[in-house]
């Protein structure tokens, strides 16, 4: 992991700037020197494993945690001293955050009531917000009379009705079932496009992140590992962690045999593989990691010509996953590689233990030094 991550800036005018932010709980470091800039009107996703620090970062932006060091600027103003109710943010929580003693209308209108708006104005804005989330027919229900998806929509309506600049979403779909989560992802994306405010969304689910994000920041072990648009994060991960966390990448460990400027030869499991150095500075003998997405790996006969973009192995098994089938191949050093193909037939599959060769295009393998 990097220490003192570079500033991950956005091309848009900044709505949120996080500068050298650290958060410690005694000896435990929840966030370490995080820098990130989130543009106004951007849908920004904080993605990472549980306990990585993404929720801590979100809650620090929202004013629910005080940073140990560093600062948070919202719309250019430092807000470190402000409590949540004084910030231009609002928040959607994972679950349990609707007020159970209030109806849907009262929940959505609560922030407006606190702000001192007239009753007729509140009613008008609440109706519009509920219409936006498709809940106009449930106005008099209490939260326990709604499904999980409806409850999260009420939370969304309660947040967007306030017309704040920044909406923080803390794993808003985590408590929903898979199908509902997919539907809600698209709804969230469309809602963000409709209202045009900045959404900062925390999730550990990469599919959810890919669906909604303009940009994704990967957070793990308190570090902001990598930040970029969804396609780049998936197709061209820079760091080893990103490659291992996003998508289904085959991770190979090896040593640089020869480095010659733009390309390098890497010793991996008895094979010599050629890889583009991507401008990374590497030296002979340096341990490195390589990643290849599983859908870019093909299986060939064992007697196929050996080259610098293939490696020998033994077939292990196939796993049928519906749309795709994963073929598992064990390399001589014990590493398991996956080749994922769209196929609905088991015909012609090798026997378990049969020797074969896995291959890929030269542009599909990536070198990682950290």
């Amino acid at each position, binding site marked *: 992991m990097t220490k003192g991550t570079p500033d991950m800036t956005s091309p848009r005018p900044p709505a949120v700037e996080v500068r050298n932010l650290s958060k410690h709980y005694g000896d435990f470091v929840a966030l370490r020197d995080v820098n990130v800039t989130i543009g106004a009107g951007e849908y920004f996703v904080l993605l990472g494993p549980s306990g990585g620090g993404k929720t801590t970062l979100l809650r620090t932006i929202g004013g629910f945690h005080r940073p140990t060091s560093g600062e948070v600027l919202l719309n250019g103003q430092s807000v470190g001293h402000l409590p949540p109710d004084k910030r231009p943010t609002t928040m959607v*929580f994972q679950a349990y*955050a609707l*007020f159970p*003693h209030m109806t849907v209308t009262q929940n959505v209108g609560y922030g407006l009531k606190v702000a001192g708006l007239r009753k007729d104005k509140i009613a008008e804005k609440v109706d519009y917000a509920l219409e936006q989330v498709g809940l106009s027919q449930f106005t008099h229900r209490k939260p326990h*009379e709604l499904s999980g998806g409806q409850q999260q929509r009420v939370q969304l309506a309660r947040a967007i009705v306030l017309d704040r600049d920044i909406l*923080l979403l803390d794993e808003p779909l985590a408590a929903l079932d898979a199908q509902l989560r997919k539907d809600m992802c698209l709804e969230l994306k469309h809602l963000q496009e409709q209202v045009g405010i900045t959404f900062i969304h925390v999730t550990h689910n990469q599919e959810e992140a890919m669906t909604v994000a303009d940009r994704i920041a990967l957070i793990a072990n308190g570090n902001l590992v990598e930040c970029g648009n969804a396609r780049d994060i998936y197709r061209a991960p820079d760091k080893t962690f990103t490659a291992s966390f996003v998508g289904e990448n085959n991770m190979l460990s090896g040593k640089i045999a020869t480095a010659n400027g733009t390309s390098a030869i890497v010793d991996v499991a008895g094979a010599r593989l050629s890889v583009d150095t991507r401008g990374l500075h590497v030296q002979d003998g340096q341990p490195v990691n390589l990643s290849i997405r599983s859908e870019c790996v093909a299986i060939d006969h064992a007697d196929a010509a050996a080259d610098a973009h293939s490696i020998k192995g033994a077939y292990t098994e196939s796993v049928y996953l519906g749309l795709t089938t994963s073929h598992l191949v064990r390399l001589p050093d014990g590493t398991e590689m996956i080749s994922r193909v769209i196929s609905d037939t088991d015909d012609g599959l090798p026997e378990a233990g049969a020797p074969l060769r896995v291959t890929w295009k030269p542009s599909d393998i990536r070198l990682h030094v950290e």
Partner: protein
Amino acid sequence: MNDYDNPLLHKLKWAYLLLVVTTLMTPVLYVMYVSFNANGFGANAYVFTLEWYGLIFSDELLIGALRWTFMLAVVVTVIAVPMALLAAKYYKSANNKLFPVFLLLAPLFVPPDILGSALLVFFKNLNLTFVWLGDLLGTTIFDSWFRLSFLTATIGLIIYTIPYSFVVILITMGRYRPEQTEAARACGANGWRAFWDIEFPQIRAGVFSACSFTVILVFNEYTRTSLLKGGFDTFTTVLISQMLNTGMSPQSYAMSALVSFIAIAVIGSIILFTMLRADSLSRTARAKAEPVMS
């Protein structure tokens, strides 16, 4: 009872429960029985009358005692319940819960006469110190601050009732999700507004129960009140001193029965209301629980 329970054992459990309740309530029921006897306690002949109830309000000693006790109950409740509420809120947010819970519940484990005597000695010494301070400053203004009085009894009863209120409120607070307070803050409410609008309505039952409990505890309390109030002029102390010296008057039985009737009615109403509300909520939820499109 489930399908595999032994019916006889089931009946025995109910009989046992009834026996316990009867044991607990028999003395109260006996006082009620005596309060309606025109011949009073211990008489051979039982003649039903409401006369003693009519005479309650002409017994100045009893009415005065009731007034003092009622004032003590109100003041102690007004101070102790908010203090217990704050303590429960602190406890919920504290990382180390063992130490605060030990501190708060400690008064429960000290015998009442020991705690009462300790407070008596403490107030006596405090009073002497204040008198000495007044003498030093040439004023008598501090002379009565910590004489045994309503104030010292109030302090003693607050110490006595806070642990009970704390436990009662904490039980209700256990169901409250702190995310709701954060959601209210995210909606623009400050800390107090979030508490009052969101948290309090959900823990209200516990707070009101704590209030009822505190009032009942103050009415029941004898040891601390008799040691710290000065003068046997509260409800329980009057009844007990009467009983010890001259025997209770028929009006005292009537007053005791009346207070018991009121306490039973209040607690019964709370239980009935809670049961009816739970039943109504469950019926509403069932009625609305038809499949909903997400």
